[in-house]
C-alpha cells in the first residue's frame, strides 16, 4: 500500500484521532467525580480564605463545616446570563458580603471572590478561584503581597465606572482606591482592573434587599 497516497494519509490520521481522542475522553470520564470534588474543595477553600474563616483542618469536610457555621448564601441571575453567588457572614459583628466575580484576564477568564462591607464602601479581601495567567508574571496576582493591598481598599463610587478601583500608577500613590500593579505583568494588571470595575458596577446594581439568603445546609446539592 502506498503510504503517501492522500487517501491513506487522511484515513490514517482520522483513525489516529479517533483512537487517541477516545483514550483521552475515557480518562476524563473516569476521573470526572474526582475532578468535580477537587473543584468544589478549591471553591470552598477560596471562600474560607476570602472571609478569613477559622477552619479546624485541611479536609474537605472541615471547609464545608466552617462555611456552614459562618455563612449564608443566595444566588442571583447575572445580567450576562451567569449565576452569581452571594455569601453573607452571619457570625460576625459587622455584616459582610462576599460575591463571586469573573471576567476576562490577559489570557483567559479570571474568577474570584470579593468580600465587601455590607454598604459596599470597603473592599475587605479578594481571592482568586481560577485563572490562566502566565506563571511567574501575571500569575503573581495570587501572591499575598498583591492580594494584601486590597484589604481595606475603598472603591471611589464617585469616579467614572472604569476607575473606581485603580491598579497601577495612574493615580496618586496615597489614593484610597489604588493598589500597585505587578511589575512585568502590565496586561494582566490592566485586565484585572477592568474586570474588577465592571464587576463592582454589576454588584452595585444588585438589589441586595431582595436576595433570599439561605443556610448552606439548605443549599447543599
Amino acid at each position, binding site marked *: 500500500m502506498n503510504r503517501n497516497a492522500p487517501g491513506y*494519509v487522511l484515513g490514517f490520521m482520522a483513525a489516529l*484521532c479517533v483512537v*487517541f481522542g477516545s483514550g*483521552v475522553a475515557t*480518562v476524563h470520564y473516569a476521573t470526572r467525580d474526582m475532578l468535580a470534588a477537587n473543584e468544589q474543595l478549591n471553591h470552598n477553600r477560596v471562600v474560607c480564605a476570602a472571609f478569613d474563616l477559622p477552619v479546624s483542618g485541611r479536609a474537605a469536610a472541615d471547609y464545608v463545616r466552617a462555611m456552614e457555621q459562618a455563612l449564608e448564601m443566595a444566588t442571583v441571575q447575572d445580567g450576562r446570563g451567569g449565576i452569581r453567588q452571594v455569601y453573607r457572614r452571619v457570625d460576625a459583628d459587622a455584616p459582610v458580603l462576599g460575591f463571586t466575580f469573573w471576567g476576562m484576564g490577559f489570557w483567559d477568564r479570571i474568577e474570584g471572590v470579593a468580600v465587601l462591607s455590607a454598604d459596599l464602601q470597603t473592599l475587605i479581601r479578594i481571592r482568586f478561584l481560577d485563572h490562566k495567567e502566565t506563571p511567574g508574571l501575571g500569575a503573581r496576582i495570587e501572591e499575598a503581597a498583591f492580594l494584601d493591598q486590597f484589604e481595606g481598599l475603598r472603591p471611589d463610587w464617585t469616579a467614572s465606572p472604569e476607575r473606581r478601583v485603580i491598579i497601577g500608577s495612574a493615580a496618586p500613590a496615597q489614593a484610597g482606591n489604588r493598589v500597585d500593579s505587578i511589575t512585568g505583568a502590565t496586561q494582566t494588571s490592566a485586565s484585572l482592573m477592568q474586570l474588577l470595575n465592571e464587576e463592582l458596577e454589576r454588584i452595585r446594581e444588585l438589589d441586595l434587599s431582595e436576595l433570599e439568603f439561605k443556610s448552606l445546609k439548605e443549599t447543599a446539592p
Partner: protein
Amino acid sequence: MSANARDIFKAGLIGDNPIYRQVLGICSALAVTNLLANTLFMCFGVVFTTALSNLTVSLLRRHIPKRVRMIAQVLIIASYVMIVDTLIRALNPDIHRFIGPYVGLIITNCIIMGRAEAFAGQNPPWPSLLDGLACGLGYSLVLIVIALVREPMGFGTLLGYPLPARELWWHSWTIMVMPPGAFFMLAIVTWIARSRFDAQKETPA
C-alpha cells in the same frame, strides 16, 4: 538485563543524559525544582509520556505516512500529556495548580519529540520503550538532584517536612526558591556531571 538494554539505560541516564548532556527540557527543569513534590510529579509525567510515546511511535512506525509523521507524533504525545494532566489534576489538585502550565508544555519538550523521531521511528517496540524510560529517568535524575538542594536550602523542608532542628542551624537562601537558584544549580550539576562522566576528552584545535 541484556547488554543492549543496559547500554540504552546507561546512555539515557548518563552518557546522553537529556539535561546535562543534550541540554533539552531545561524550561521545566528550572521551573518546578524548588519543591521536591512538584518535581516528582513532573518527572512522573515526563517518564510516562516519553516511554509510552516512544512505544506507540515504534509500534506504528511501519504505518505512519512519512510526510505527516511529525504531526502524528505530536498527536500521540499530546494525548499522553493530556492523560497525565488529567490524572495529576484528579489526584493532587494543589500540585497541579503550580505545575499545570509546565505539564502542558511537556508536549513541546524536545526530549520526547527528539526520542520519537531519532530512536522510536527506527527501532522495535521493546528497545524504544526502554529508551523512553531511560531518557525520562535521566531527566528525572537531574531534576531530583537539583530539587534535593533547592527545597532544603530555600524552604528548610524536604517533601514539605521540616528539616531536623532547623531553627538551630538553618537559614533561608531565598535565591534557591527563585529562578536564579535553578540556573546556578543546573550549571553546578552540569559541571560536576560532565567532569565526572565525560569520557571524551576535548582536544585542542
